[in-house]
């Protein structure tokens, strides 16, 4: 059996069907289809302006990105729910996570207070017990080790005075802490030096499991040497123009995007 046939046999956990998205009056995504199964890593590559970040934002639920057509089906307790009907915080509580291309600074709110609040909101929603500050502190420190992060970040305001690399690591730290089922990583590799990228990639690899899935959005092939995807999709002018295995990324690295239409 081919890989394609095997995956068809399992139920998809995340399915984008004929999705069109507007920002203001401009149509950015023009009919996207994408099916993702548990355990898979998909990469979406594309040149600037192809709609990569729009795809990430509409999955996270940003109010400026309006779906005009199509649906995003997500499996919750064996039922497929269109997450376009859910508020951003409801999506997060159901296990959808987006790592930001440009993480936001939150002055005055410490990383530990923020992350514990987020963690407990998700626990509460999923019927799990909330964690007290002491236990959470230990849990957080353990996760920080995965990303080689210094303890000093715990009490610092979220992303304030963090370097570019530290901000990206902080995104993956949040992914480790919140333990999502489906993650979109929006250009997590951009602006990272090679050492930081290895740390971030190792972190992502440690978080790969059979029951979760990752959508990597990237401009460059570089990250995909470290986090090897099962599928690569090329996004151009708001449409997926080609979907293949990991070799496609190498071709794009060699030839650029212009040979794809």
């Amino acid at each position, binding site marked *: 059996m081919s890989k394609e046939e095997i995956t068809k046999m399992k139920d998809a956990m995340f399915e984008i069907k004929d999705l069109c998205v507007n920002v203001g009056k401009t149509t950015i995504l023009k009919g996207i289809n994408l099916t993702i199964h548990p355990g898979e890593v998909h990469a979406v590559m594309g040149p600037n302006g192809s709609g990569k970040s729009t795809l990430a934002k509409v999955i996270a639920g940003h109010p400026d990105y309006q779906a005009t057509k199509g649906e995003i089906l997500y499996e919750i307790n064996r039922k497929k729910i269109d997450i376009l009907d859910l*508020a951003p*915080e409801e999506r997060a509580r159901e296990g959808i996570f987006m790592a930001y291309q440009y993480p936001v600074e939150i002055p*005055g*709110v410490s990383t530990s207070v*923020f992350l514990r609040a987020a963690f407990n909101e998700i626990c509460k929603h999923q019927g799990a017990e909330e964690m007290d500050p002491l236990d959470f502190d230990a849990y957080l420190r353990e996760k920080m080790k995965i990303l080689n992060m210094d303890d000093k970040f715990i009490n610092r305001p979220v992303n304030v005075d963090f370097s570019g690399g530290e901000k990206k690591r902080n995104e993956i730290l949040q992914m480790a802490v919140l333990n999502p089922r489906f993650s979109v990583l929006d250009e997590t590799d951009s602006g990272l030096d090679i050492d930081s990228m290895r740390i971030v990639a190792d972190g992502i690899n440690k978080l790969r499991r059979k029951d979760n899935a990752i959508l990597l959005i990237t401009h460059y092939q570089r990250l995909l040497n470290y986090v090897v995807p099962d599928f690569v999709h090329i996004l151009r002018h708001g449409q997926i123009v080609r979907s293949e295995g990991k070799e496609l990324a190498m071709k794009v690295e060699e030839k650029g995007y212009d040979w794809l239409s």
Partner: protein
Amino acid sequence: MIRNIEHITKSLIDERMPQWFNTLRIQGLSRFIETGIPAVSDPNWKYTDLEALKKLAFDVSENGELNEWELLNQFRNHKDINIVLLNGAFSVKHSDLDNLEKGVLVSTLHEAVKNNAPHIQERLTKYPMTDTAAFIALNQALNGPGVYILVDEKVVSNRLIHIIHVTHPGRQNFASMPRTLIVMEPFSEAAIFESHVAFGDSRTYFSNALTDIFMNENATLHYCKSQKESLKAFHIGHTRVWQERDSSFDGFSFMAGGRLTRNNVDAVLNGEGANARLNAFYSVNNSQHVDNHTSIEHRVPNCASNQLYKGILNDSARAVFNGRILVRPEAQKTNSYQLNKNLLLGSGCRVDTKPQLEIFADDVKCTHGATIGQLDEDEMFYLQTRGIGKNAASRMLAEGFLSDLLNTVKNAAVREKLNSLTRRSFEAS
């Protein structure tokens, strides 16, 4: 506003009090009658309309007894030295005067006047009545027994002194005139917290408070005025700080408001090397109005002043900030900083903010700024994408807006008290 004000002159004179004090009261009354209640045409009152206050008639005498003293417990902390004033009168029974540290003197102000405490006349007449603001004059005419605190030379008082001004009139429309005098002798240090509170929101009253603080050479005072009055109450308050050489005033105001609040903090830097910090947080909801005025006078060289005023407004609340900095020609090498930041959470709220810089020296550093804004949408969205709902996210951001301000408070006891008070204001909103 004050019922029968023209006819109360006689009752101001107390035969047991020294002549000068009776004269001061009469001067205060004449000055108030002369100025009248300021109108919005007065530049100092441009954004705060006192028409509603003017229309009501208040009585100055109040002999209502308080039967529910246990209600006080919500404001008391056993770690502090609590000093309780009910309707402007000192309650010895409910104050912890037995626990005072050596070298810290606390009594009623009228008692100190009667006993002719050292320099008391000089201090109470320090500011000439001729250009005194209306409500300061009114307090000087009608003030209650008040409180007098003196921290002796080289004495370091370790426990927080908490002055609790409770206004709880037995009948409606009472005017309370709390009066506080704090004297910090040379090289002394203390932490003093003044709270203006009420039991609930049912009473209509007018609290017109006046606090004078004298900082002698090298004295350090950690001071906070906190205010949460009945929602039907008017509060007009003045804190005047006089600073001599190398003294350090670390001041904070927390205004949770009433119906209408006006808070003036004035500092005179009269000795080289003195520094004043006047920081504040105001948090108002519904149709509450809070007006903060500051005035810092740099009279001599090499002094520093810092002001950070932050406010959070909900619903259709209004806030006013006016920060005056006067640098006299002699006051070279002045370093003065002023910032007012407002966070608007309601759709109907409004802020009027104005710096007022009068600089007559040429070698000074003065920076000032003001911001008025709403919650940052990117920050909100970021928190939401981590599972935090809109209400919790906006509360978290509002607390974040406040946290760096509270971190400027150096004294741990003052900071802790402010932390718990401000947290309560978030829970209420």
